[in-house]
Structure formats: structure tokens, C-alpha cells
């Protein structure tokens, strides 16, 4: 935060503002968790229903279990790195850069997977079955999580290099970002477990 804005609109203490922001993000995480729940519910619902044997049709393609975990790994590493950075504020600038790179790599890998998914029917351009449909939705949600995480990590990198930010409020904002990073790592693990059960 620049020196001009040390005077928050409500003139509340940075701790109060920070705690409030973290609360807001946690409530938004509830909404996102509901989104993830709906995707996982849909995945298992369609899998168990297997309408007309169309979950994974004969000769249908799937992603390996490992590929799901490879996508999730940067989410977990990013969350851990951020936690380490929080403990030692002197290194936060460097650690934030590494976190950003990790998230960007995860985003790239997820998009690469989506662009090269094997289950598009060549004649129609449509999807092979319900597994393929559910997979792409989950992959899209992962990509969305990566985009938000990259934005936050980039902000933390830039702000760590500015001398005029309020250190107390910044510390709270890192905690707020940590809430999101931790949640998307958990969500990633849930999604990896889900797509691993074919």
C-alpha cells in the first residue's frame, strides 16, 4: 500500500482491515468449494449411472491417473512455498517469484492438456463420452484456479518490491492469499483423486 493510502477509507487499523479481507476471501472460497462439489458430484453421478455405457465408450480414451497429479503438483508446491515465504518476510520477494513461476507452469501445463486432450471425435468434433465431458470441466476449473493464483502471486511479487507498502497490512494480505493458495491445493487434490477414479 502506498503512503498516501495508509489512511484507509474507514481509518481502521491494518489488522482490522486485513482480518476483514481474509474473512471475505474465505466466504468466496465457500462459493468456490460449492462449485467444486457440484463438479465432483456430477462426475461420480454420471460415472455410476453410465448411461448407455457412455461413461467411457468402447475404444474411448482416458488420461492417466498420474497426469492428474502432475497438474495438481504446482498447486501444492505453490501453497507450500507461500507458507515458507510468510515465515521469513525477508525472502518473500524471491519466494513470490518462484511461486509465480510454479503457478504459471501449472497453468501452462493445464492448458496444454486441454488443447491436446485425446477424446475428441474427429468426425463430429464432439466429445467421446461423459468421462471426457466431466474431465474437461474439472480441467477448466483447475485452469481458473491457476489464473487467480497467478494474478495474486504476481501482485505479491510487484508489491514486495515497493518500499511504500504498509508492512502490517501486507502481511495480512499474504495471509489472505494463503487462504486461496491452500484452498486451491486442496481442491486440486480432490479433483485429482476424482479424475483418478475412472
Amino acid at each position: 500500500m502506498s503512503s498516501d493510502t495508509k489512511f484507509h477509507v474507514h481509518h481502521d487499523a491494518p489488522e482490522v482491515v486485513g482480518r476483514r479481507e481474509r474473512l471475505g476471501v474465505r466466504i468466496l472460497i465457500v462459493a468456490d468449494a460449492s462449485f467444486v462439489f457440484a463438479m465432483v458430484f456430477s462426475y461420480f453421478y454420471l460415472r455410476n449411472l453410465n448411461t448407455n455405457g457412455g461413461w467411457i465408450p468402447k475404444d474411448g480414451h482416458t488420461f492417466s491417473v498420474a497426469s492428474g497429479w502432475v497438474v495438481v503438483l504446482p498447486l501444492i508446491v505453490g501453497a507450500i512455498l507461500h507458507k515458507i515465504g510468510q515465515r521469513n518476510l525477508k525472502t518473500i520477494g524471491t519466494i513470490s517469484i518462484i511461486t509465480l513461476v510454479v503457478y504459471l507452469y501449472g497453468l501452462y501445463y493445464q492448458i496444454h492438456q486441454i488443447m491436446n486432450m485425446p477424446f475428441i471425435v474427429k468426425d463430429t468434433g464432439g466429445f467421446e463420452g461423459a468421462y471426457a465431458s466431466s474431465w474437461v470441466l474439472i480441467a477448466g476449473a483447475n485452469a481458473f484456479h491457476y489464473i487467480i493464483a497467478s494474478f495474486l502471486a504476481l501482485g505479491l511479487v510487484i508489491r514486495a518490491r515497493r518500499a511504500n507498502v504498509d508492512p502490517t497490512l501486507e502481511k495480512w494480505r499474504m495471509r489472505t492469499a494463503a487462504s486461496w493458495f491452500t484452498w486451491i491445493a486442496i481442491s486440486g487434490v480432490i479433483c485429482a483423486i476424482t479424475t483418478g477414479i475412472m
Partner: protein
Amino acid sequence: MTTLSSHVSSRPIPNPKNSLITKLNAGTGLIVGVVFAVATYNLLKGENEDPGIAYNIHNRALLAAMFMWSIGFLVGIGAFIGPWRWLIGKDLTAEEQLYLAGDGQGIKRYFKYCTDHKVVGIQYLWGVITLLGVGGAMAMMIRTNLAAPGGHFITASVYNSLVGLHGITMIIAMIIVATGPFGNYIMPIMIGAADMAFPRLNALSWWVLFTAIPVLCSAWFLGGIPTGWTAYAPLSIQAGPGMNAFIATIIIFAVSTAVAGSNITATVIAMRAKGMTWNRVPIFVIGATISVALAVPAFPTFMVSMIMTALDRTYMTGFFDANIGGSGWLYAHLFWIMGHPEVYVILIPGVAVLMEIVPVFVRMPLFSYIGAVVGFAGIAGLSILVWAHHMYMSGWMPMLNGPFMVTTEMISIPTGLIFLVMLGTLWHGKPWLKLPMLGVYAFLWNMLVGGITGIYLSDVPADNYLHGSMYVTAHFHYTLMGAALTGAVAGLAYWFPKMTGRMLNERAGYVSFWLIQIGFQVLYLGMFTAGAEGQPRRVVNYASQFATANRISTVGAYLVGTGFVVLLWAVVHSWRHGKIAPMNPWGAKSLEWTVPYPVPLVNFDTPPVVTSDPYGYGKAVK
């Protein structure tokens, strides 16, 4: 707490006139939004020899254009300046924040990205009025066509679209009808806060919602939506391009709801005045918070179902296509997991408004505050366990019909508690029969009818007969319109003096109240009769045996319509020429009545300290 104005004047600050935020408004938003939408459509529209694939590409381009309109508008109005400035480490200055709060900008601030919660409240109010007006006009067209069998007022396809668009327009309007205007304008003052927890998110929730309105309206020009507001798959997959507008509207609206829900909840949890312990929080605030806390996890499931529908329509995924492993039941589940809590997202704030009103106008404390809170929480908690009662007749898991019937009927218990609290408060009181108080009596009757008819529908054997009939339509109108909308209108009459500085024209208010309430009974009791006799809903034509009931319903609809026109006149006329309101015209004890009109930018000159509950009018009724 130091007020913004005092600390701003105490230090040198840059001139915000040099800032980009001073140059942006709804006009620039409109321009950028349209440019984004047109550019996106032209970029993505493509041709393909296969008409099926060409149609999918067209749908993709349309959907993308609708989302880009929304994003473009938000860019153009300046919604992303805050996040951008955060990203680059140059936070908004105090003066820029003051400018964003709309200080001293008069009527212009209503067309800007204004962060003042009072401005956002008024924006929501007019948004609600507009949506109710459009939805109401569609209802009048539907009823006009149904006035006699074989009605030719509109064609069958237009009728189909009207039913769906009326439904979704009204649902959106009703979700925001109380929490939008009063949750934003009044609630922060009620809890003694200077503003909402996240003023920029507050503005964002309104303007995101605003961008959904033209998208929804565009459905008219894209062939309408033939699916009803439930948009069941696979109908929605096969529907024409107008369906894209529906999908985009829901997704945009879900974003707005999540943002608003997070903001309202955080505000109530974190920004209550000193001394405002949880048992001193006004009951409207409790109701609104429970409502948005229910909406936050409920709407994402609807969002997921809409994303799936969009993917099925544009990329030929198979979520709902049984040929490739999909299932229509999946849509029904996702929709109703949201759909039933959504009923209470609508209902609870309206009822909470009335509970706020009763103690003031009978000069008695709220009978069992704890009972009211438990009632609201019980309704919210049970509402997530009842969704499959909408699917009794779908053939999904008949063995679960019994358990879902039980959970549904259990909702009667917390609902009964709400009734008990209202009646207990009225008991031995001497009601001051002003306009807001009339809404309480109307609610008690309407909710009684709506609630009891709901028990029949929750009952599997009775639902077997009544499902899909006009009876269902009459039932949910009794609860949503008869209870929730009545509560919101009573709230408007109650808080009108605080929001406008003037009294609502009482005579016109009474005329509109009686027209609406008498018309309402005529309209929906007629509909109950037709439904009980077997008339299906959502049909453009019907057998002559239902003619009398339908004619009566249409007469009732015109009475209701006339009543709302009178109410609109009363609102507009009173806003401009009404009697100047005193600071506390009702002698109420909650905090919003301790501030003058116009309410100062930060609401209170000195932070209030709460020492008692807001309903201490006399002895509690035992």
C-alpha cells in the same frame, strides 16, 4: 473511528481530477462493452459446411460476446481499476477512494462505479423496480392470453418464451428485492457500520448484475427461450440461440450473488458497532445474512449446470446427452440443489423485513428473538435437504421419495416458529395500522395459504395428481409474491423516509395495497381452482371447463397490475413531492433512525455504541 472527511482534510492529497476514475461512467462502460461484444462475435463467428457444427460455432460466438459485453462494461466503468492498482502496487489514494464514494457528485454518482452503499442501495432499488415492471408486463400478457380458451393474443412460441422469461426475470428480481435495496442501503446503518466491508465489491455486485439485464433482454431478439425458467436439459440443449442469453445471464448473476453474499456476510460479522452483540442484531440483518449465506453455496451449483449446458451446446460434450453417457437427471439435481434453497433465499429477507416492522408498529418487543433466529436458520438448514421433492414424478429413485417428503414437511416446523413469533408479537399489542403494518397482516394470510398448499405438494400421492398443474403455479406465487414481495413492499413503505427523505404518499399506498391484495387473492384462488381441476401449467390453450377460473384469474391479474402501477406512481411522486420526513417518523429504536437524511457519507459522525436490543418497547409477552 475517524471519519473520512476529517482525515482527508488533514493532509495534502493529490487531485483526483487527474485520475482515470473521474472520466469513467456507465456511458463509457456501455461503449467499451459493446465494442468488446461486437469484436468478440466477429472474431469467433466462423463458417462450416456442416450445419450442426456451424450452429455450435455460432452459439460459441454468441456466448463469448455476451460474456465479453459484461467484462467490457466493467472495464469501461472502471471496475478493474482497484485490482489493477493493487497489482502494480499503487493502491488507490484516499482522495480517489473519496471520489469513488461519490461525495458531492449529485445524481451523476448513480451512473458511476460508486462505492457508497447508499448509492448502491438506490441502484438496486431501481433495478428491482425495472425487473419487476418488465416481468409484470410479461405476466399481464400471459394472463391476457389465458383470459379465454383459444386465446390468440400471442402466438404459442411467443407464449412459451414469455413464460420462461417472466419466470427468470421475476426470480432474479425477487432474489434481490429485499437484500439489494435494504441490505445495501439500510443494513450497514442498522449495525452501526460506516460502510460495507468491501465497498468496491459492493459496487461490483450491482454493476455485474446490471450487465446481466441487457443479456437477458437479448433473448427476445434471438428467438426467446422455450424451456421455462427451469431450462431443463435436453430441451435447453436443443433450444435456439436465445438460450445462450439465458445461460450467460445465470452465470453473470451467480457471480454477482457470490460477490454480494460475501460482502454482506463479512459486513455483518466484522463491522457491527461496539456493543452490538449477536442477540442485539436487528432481525432483518439476521434474516438477510442467513439468506445470502445460503445463496453463496447454492448458486454455484446452478452455475455449474449452466456451464455444462453451454458446453453441451457449443462443444458437444455429453453431460445431458444420454447417447454419450449423459443424463437429464443430473441437470435436475444440480438445478434443484440450488432451486429449493433459492426459494428461501427469496423468502427469508422479506419475512425478516416484516419482523422488523411488527415490534415498531405494535410497540411490543419481538416475541422470542431466539425463536425467530432458530426459525430462519432451521428453514435455511432444511432447505438444502429437500431438492428431490421437485423430482417425485421424474422417475428418479422412487425409494427416496419418502425421505424427501419427510424432510420437506419438516420445514413446516421452523416456518411455524416464524408464524408464532409474528403472532406472539402482535398478541395484546395495539397495532398502529400504517402502510408497512398492513403488509404484516397480508403476509400472515398469504403465507398461511402458500404454506398449507405446499404441504399437499410435498406429499407424494397428492403431488402425483397436482404436479405440473396450475395449482403449483398458484402455490409458489402465494409464497414468493404473497409473502416475500409483500414483505419487500412493506419494507419500502417503512424505509422510504430514510432512503428518500420523504414520506410515501399514504393514500396512494393504501389504494395500491388493497388493489394488489384483493387482486392477488382473486388471481391465485382462481388459479388454485383451475389447477385442482387438472389444468396443466405452461400451456397456451386449455379446455373450456377451465374457462371460468381462468377468466377470474385474469380479472385478478389486472387488479394486481393496476395496484402496482399506483404504487409506482406513489413512489415516483413521493420521491419528488412527498411530505418531508422527520428523522424517525415511526419512533423506531434501531440505529438507522438515529441518522439524518441525507445520511452522511460515513453514516455516523461518531461511532455508535449499542447498549440494548432494538425492540425494547415494553414488557415481553409471556
